[in-house]
Structure formats: structure tokens, C-alpha cells
């Protein structure tokens, strides 16, 4: 089958790639573009390890067809830090030990960042429901939730 030529933007970089029409965005990121930060935990939209944003909207890369990236803006975990500066969420996750094995972490960070960009004053319940699509088997979520809430508080403090 002929490959499709896709022009898109990934983490701010204009990017072109060739893909099969039925290839998932996750496979293209990982296998064609070498962006292995997004993880595959299930391939069926149930774990959130592959979370990315598409034009600012949180999606599962495993459920997205790669050709849908045409003309869109994609953000992955690799785009969260700016230069040599970790994003506050990244710093807080390390500081709070909000990761154990770390396999869920890229997806959780992408999802948490998307939440805080919409709402920098979420309740604990809001954070829990927003992250309900991101499975973590190691932490019991406690430290993840605390880290996200704390970054939100810092953001509000800085904004004041």
C-alpha cells in the first residue's frame, strides 16, 4: 500500500513523515520518529500511557490514526521541558516521588499539564477524575495527585 505523506508540527518543530494509512500516531511517534517517550500500555485507549495533545486536546495516541496529524499541532512528553529547564510538573514529580517505575509518568505529565492549562485551581476530585484515564499500578495515585495539586497552587501563587 502506498505510504501517506503527512506534514505536521510536533513539540513546535515542523515535521514530515510517511506512514501507512492505518498506522497509529503512537507507532509513528515511537517507530518512525524515534519519540519513544510516549508509551504503549494497552493499545486500546484504556491506560493513558500514550497520552499526547492534538491542537491542545488530550488524546490517546494509540487511538489516533497518524494521518489525522496533518496540519495539526502535537505535543508529547518530549516537549514538556523547555531547553534545559524542567517544567514545574516534572520537577514536582521528582521532588514528591510521584513516580516509581515511571512508565505511566509521560502520559500522566501530558494529561496533568493539559488539566492545569485549562484549570489552575482544580479540586482533588477534579484532578482524580481528570487523571482517571491514566493508569498507574505503582503509586496508588496519592503522590501524583499531591504533586499536581501542589504545582497548581504554585502556579496560582506565581500568577498573583
Amino acid at each position, binding site marked *: 500500500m502506498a505510504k501517506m505523506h503527512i506534514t505536521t508540527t510536533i513539540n513546535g518543530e515542523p515535521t514530515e513523515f510517511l506512514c501507512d494509512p492505518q498506522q497509529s500516531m503512537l507507532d509513528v511517534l*515511537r517507530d518512525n520518529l524515534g*519519540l*519513544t*517517550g*510516549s*508509551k*504503549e*500500555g*494497552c*493499545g*486500546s485507549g*484504556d*491506560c493513558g*500511557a500514550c497520552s499526547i495533545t492534538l491542537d491542545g486536546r488530550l488524546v490517546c495516541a494509540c487511538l489516533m490514526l497518524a494521518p489525522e496529524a496533518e496540519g495539526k499541532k502535537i505535543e*508529547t*512528553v*518530549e516537549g*514538556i*521541558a523547555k531547553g534545559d529547564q*524542567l517544567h514545574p*510538573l*516534572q520537577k514536582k*514529580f*521528582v*521532588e*514528591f*516521588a510521584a*513516580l*516509581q*517505575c*515511571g*512508565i*505511566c*509518568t*509521560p502520559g500522566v*505529565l501530558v494529561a496533568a499539564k493539559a488539566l492545569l492549562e485549562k484549570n489552575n485551581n482544580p479540586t482533588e*476530585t477534579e*484532578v*482524580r*477524575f481528570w*487523571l*482517571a*484515564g*491514566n*493508569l*498507574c*499500578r*505503582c*503509586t*496508588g*495515585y*496519592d*503522590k*501524583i*495527585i*499531591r504533586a499536581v495539586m501542589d504545582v497548581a497552587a504554585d502556579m496560582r501563587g506565581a500568577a498573583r
Partner: protein
Amino acid sequence: MSTGKYKWIGTRVDRPDGADKVTGRARFGADFNMPGQLIGRVLRSPHAHAIIKSVDTSAAEKLPGVKAVVTAKDLPEQPNVIVPAGEMQVNLRDITRNILAREKVLFEGHPIAAVAATTDAIAKQAVELIKVEYEVLPHVIDVTEAMKPGAPVLHDHLITEGVKPAPTKASNIAKRMDNTKGDFEAGLKQAEIVVEREYTTQAVHQGYIEPHATLASAAEDGQVQLWSTTQGHFQVRGFVSRLLGIETSQIRVTPSEIGGGFGGKTVVYLEPIAVRLSQKSGKPVKMVMTREEVFRASGPAPGGTVRVKLGAKKDGTIVAAECEIALQAGAFPGSPLGPACWTSFACYDIPNIKVVGFDVVSNRPKVAAYRAPGAPISAWGVESTLDVLALELGMDPIDLRLKNAAKKGTKTSYGPTFDTIGFVETLEAVKKSAHYKTPPKPGYARGVAAGFWFNVGADSSAASHVAEDGTVTVISGNPDIGGSRASLALMAAEELGVDYSKVRPIIADTSSIGFNFVTGGSRVTFATGLAVVNSVRDMIRELKVRAAKTWGVDPDAVIWEDGVAKPAGSNVGEFEPLTLSQLAATAGKTGGPINGHAQLNAQGAGPGFGVHVVDLKVDRDTGCVHIDRYTAAQDVGTAIHPSYVEGQIQGGAVQGIGWALNEEYIYNAKGRLDNAGFLDYRMPVASDLPMIDALVVEVPNPHHPYGVRGVGEVPIVPPLAAVGNAVARSINIRMTDLPLSPPRLSAAIDAATPKMAAE
């Protein structure tokens, strides 16, 4: 916490691999690739039980792009020999059949053949072209059914072990084991109250988010390189060597970062196949399981049945205790029956104990270790029955446990006598906690349960190197599954008296450090930690020699303190202290590089005890459980890195909550798994839970320089019964079958509610 006593131990430093893991830079199993690699895929059985009459791979081999196909014929036959596999035991004859089926398929998902092709799509297509002729046999899934005479027998050679006289006929009961203390029957006669209940649990999966993955490269000269996501790369090396007949030193296994394991990644599934495919094709071969494959053919932990009988005095003193356990082993013998039996009454000082266990095969995937293997199942029975006793006696559940708690000097039913342990301290910490002192909110009920795990020592090796600038590398060989790099570096920094940031912990491949047993059994911070401490001590010994040489004094006249060499006393002479960097700078003149090494078989792993308290309510209409508050207390010895200690406790508790409330393997009438995905196999998500308060109790282990006890296993033991006990107190129905899922709870509530005739 331990702060005050130590400079580094007990502090919440950033983990050394933190930045890598929050930026996506860390490389996990599926993130390794090699130029020219092929993709491997596995053909799996659609049947639960069938004879393999023939396997025809010719069409697959002819497909363009297919470079190699393997079947069981490509693996040499293995002897009937039991070898250790992580915390469990496996028979070599069985494990090769688990990797690729021979005479029979024994569970749905059982691998039969594998192909390597230039693309994943071709590999998948090739798998479909393999023709297998089956003779389908009757199957058996349930343990109780499998134990009945007349049940379909999985293995014609399986004669029950541990029964005298030995049975003459094969059955599905692989083993009977028992352990006793005192005289149960006599003890029961002294009892003023006797309670007895029977329970069941279902198989559950470890649920690590990262599927199994491996990359194998076999060179023409016989050398093999492997990259694998595993809890034990030395174990992978050992099994690949045994199962393929390759000399151990020819195999080099590099562990990737590991995306969770919980015991489930102490088993080899893909590695021998990938190596064989690579040998046959002459190309590197990468294999990654799908989530469905992970569910159908890796893990799970067993389900089982437990019967518990307790006899007590009116004041709560337990005088006799009996537990009978039957565990699913899966398709091949070897469930965690031993630990299930031994842990059952380990929390309590009971004079008369009788424990009997059965290891039972059925047409399910071979079980693997899962966090405190076996212990949650017996604890579900024992701790639930204790709650029945507490209710009948009208006693506080903590007081009942305090009355019977094991202490230093208590002899266990399985042999050892406890040294210093912290069960009483843990119970008292809960009793004093804000949670326990506050009654549950209106509408909520409280459950309490305890749990025990031995913790494991075993083999570890470590090395410490001083670099030219005086910074230090600490090398060990256990994959870091939850922050162990940080714990090891903290202990090394403490021992050496240098800044934590000056110590770099590295996890070496199998050819770069001596043998290390798996990351499992809660052993790494204890045993590998001990090896690291000893390697640093060895390095300090050398540093003192170098300082002595510099000063022209005897090495015994030098001490190491706060990261510097000093003269032992004023009689040695007046010398300025020498720092690590000074000693490193002159190392070339004083005898060359400064390193330390250690290897050991660690003894004296301190047992751990946990006590959990949960407040929950059951929605009587839907059967849904809402957890309002959860406290998990545990004696951890010394919390080296408190955040990761808490994390282990919180994560283990939540896995236990999942086990209690929702998780289960569901089979259909054909013996096929009906819920092989995260949508239908329901693990806890963030919105199911409250914060989990980890109450860290520190009763140092006398057998470790820093008092370390293992932490990771204990927290999964109490939650099943803690949740069940709270549910029982909430709805006044003692649920005995897990999981306490909404359909099961609402059915129980409906059955117990008098029909409202008028409506």
C-alpha cells in the same frame, strides 16, 4: 523518621534517574531497537486444553519477509528438575513447555510457534499462516472442580507429592503440604468460642503497565546480547542458558528500565524465543507482547479457596487455629503455596496451629509471583475470620490482634522464632492514629486487618569506584523498580560521609557485575543495600591504606570519618585530613585506582508487618463501594528514603484494594478468558480512591547496619480483609468470595433484604 541519627538516610532526596523518567528519555523494554532488527510474533492456542497433532509452518516460512520460524522442536528437551525462579520454583521440563507448547496446549494463549519477519505486519500475517491440528480435550478452570475425581487431568505423570502412601493415579493435585505447631485438636478442646468460615479468591494480574519486551541479538560466533524488561537479568541469562544450551558467559543481558513487575517479571516468556529466532535468522529480533497477551499468557497470581477455623477463650486469647488452602498453580505445578501456608498465622502467637495446603493445576496460564506471593489469599481468610471472632466477642479488632500478637521470641508454625519485630508497635501506632481515634463518618463503616511478609535476603554483588575527581560510582545488579537507586546511593553516601550528589548509582548488565538475585521479595534495599554498604566499606579500607601510604604510617593508624581520612590519634602524628578528591588525585602514586567490592548471601531479612484501616460505605442500590479514608501502617525497619517507602505502602495497598473490589480473571464456558484488557479487567483508577495515609513505623532490623527491612510486599497483604471487614460491618453480611464487585454485592444485598411485597 530517622533524621537526626543520620545525615542522608531518612532524607527525601531527588532520585538519580528522576530527570530521565519525567522527560521520556528513560529507555524501557520496548524502547530498544537495533539496526536491521526483525519483529517477532507468537502464535497462541485458542483452546484451553488440546493435543497438538501437528504444526505446519511451511506457508509461513514461504511468506516474503519472514526470516525465521520456531516451534518447540527448536528448544532442547529439559530434565524433570526444579530450579528457583525468583520467589517461586519452576521445573525445567515445564518451563520449556510454558514457553513453547509440546505435546499439548494447556491454556488459552499458550504459545505454540513464533516467527520473525521484517515488519510487524508481515510477522502477524505469518502467524496466521501456521496451521495447527488440535484434538480438543475437556478442560477444567476452577480449582475445586480440578481437585475432584474424574476431572480432566492435565498431566498424565502428575502424582501428588506429599501424600503417603503416594497415589497411584495421576491427578491435578500437584502437592499437599502442611505445617503444624502444638496440637490443634487438643487446643480446640480448650476453646470457649469457635468460628469457622470458607472463602474464595479469583486469579488477579500483577497489572504492570509495561508489557513484556525483549530484543535479542545472537552473533555468528555464538555470543548473545539481550535487552529485556525484567526484575532479574541474571535470571534471564540463567534461563536462556539452560533452555537453549548456551554457555552462561556467552550471554550478556542488559536490563532496560522496568515499567512495573510486582513479581510478574521474574519469569521468562519471550527471551528464549527471541534468541532462537535471532540465531536462526542471523538478525536481531525484537518482541513485545500486546496487553491481551500479557493477560492471557503472563502472570497472573492464583485464585484459591481458604477455610479457616479459630478457637478462642472469651477474653480473646486464641488457643487453636487451622487453615486449609488450595491454590491455582495454572497449567503447571508451582503456586506460591508455601508462603501462603507459612504466612497464614505468622502475625499471631498461637500455641496450636494446623495448616494444610494444596497446589492444583488447571487450564489457566501458569501463575507467577505477585507481591507477597500467596500471602494475601491466606490473610483474606484468616483476617476475615478474626473479624468474625472480634464481632462475636464484642472486642475491638485492634485489641484482639494485640492480645494475640507475635513478638520477639514467638515461634512460628513454619519453624523460625522471631527476632526483633514490630507488629505490636504497628498495631499501637494505628490505635493512636488520628484516623482510628475518629469514628467513621455517618453511613461509613470501618474495617481493620493485618498482614505479614518474611522479606528476602539472598545473593547480591556490588562494587564501588572512586573516580579521578573523587566522586563515586556505586555499581549493583538489580533493576530499579521503584526508587532503589536512590536508597542505595543514600546508604553509600551515609557510609562514606560524602554528599549524596557525589554518589552515582549504576545498574550493571550481567557481564559487568557479579551475580544478583532478582529484584523481588522486598530484598533490594536490604540485601543489595548490604552489598553496597560492604563494597563502600571495602573501598574505605583501601582509602585508609592510601592515606597511610601518603603519611608513611600504618593503615591501622588511619580512621575514616565524615568523608575524610584522619590520623587515629595524636600519637600517629600531625596530618591534615585527606579528602576523597585528594586521595583520588594521588591514587596513581599510592597504588592505582581505588575500588571496593562485595558479594554476599544476605541472611537476617527482617520480617515486616502491616495493619490497615479503611472507612467505606456500600451503595445499597448499585453495590458500589466508596472508600472515604485509608490508613496503612507498617514496620519498615528504617525508612531509607521515606517517600519511596510511603510509595511502596500506598501502591501495595491500592493493588490490594483492587484485588478486594474488582479485579478477577473471568472465564467463559470454553475456558477462554473473557476480560483480557484494561477496560474489563478493572484496576483502580485515581477517581476510585482517597489519599492513602502511610503510617511508617520504624523498628530497626538488627541484622542490617542501617536497620533495613523489606517494605514492598507487606502492604498488599492486609487490604483484602480490611475492605471485606469494613463491608461486613457496613451491610451486615459477611462476604466470603472476592472480588466484592458491584454485581456480587448488590446480589448479596438483594438476597438478604426481605422482599418488599407491596412494591
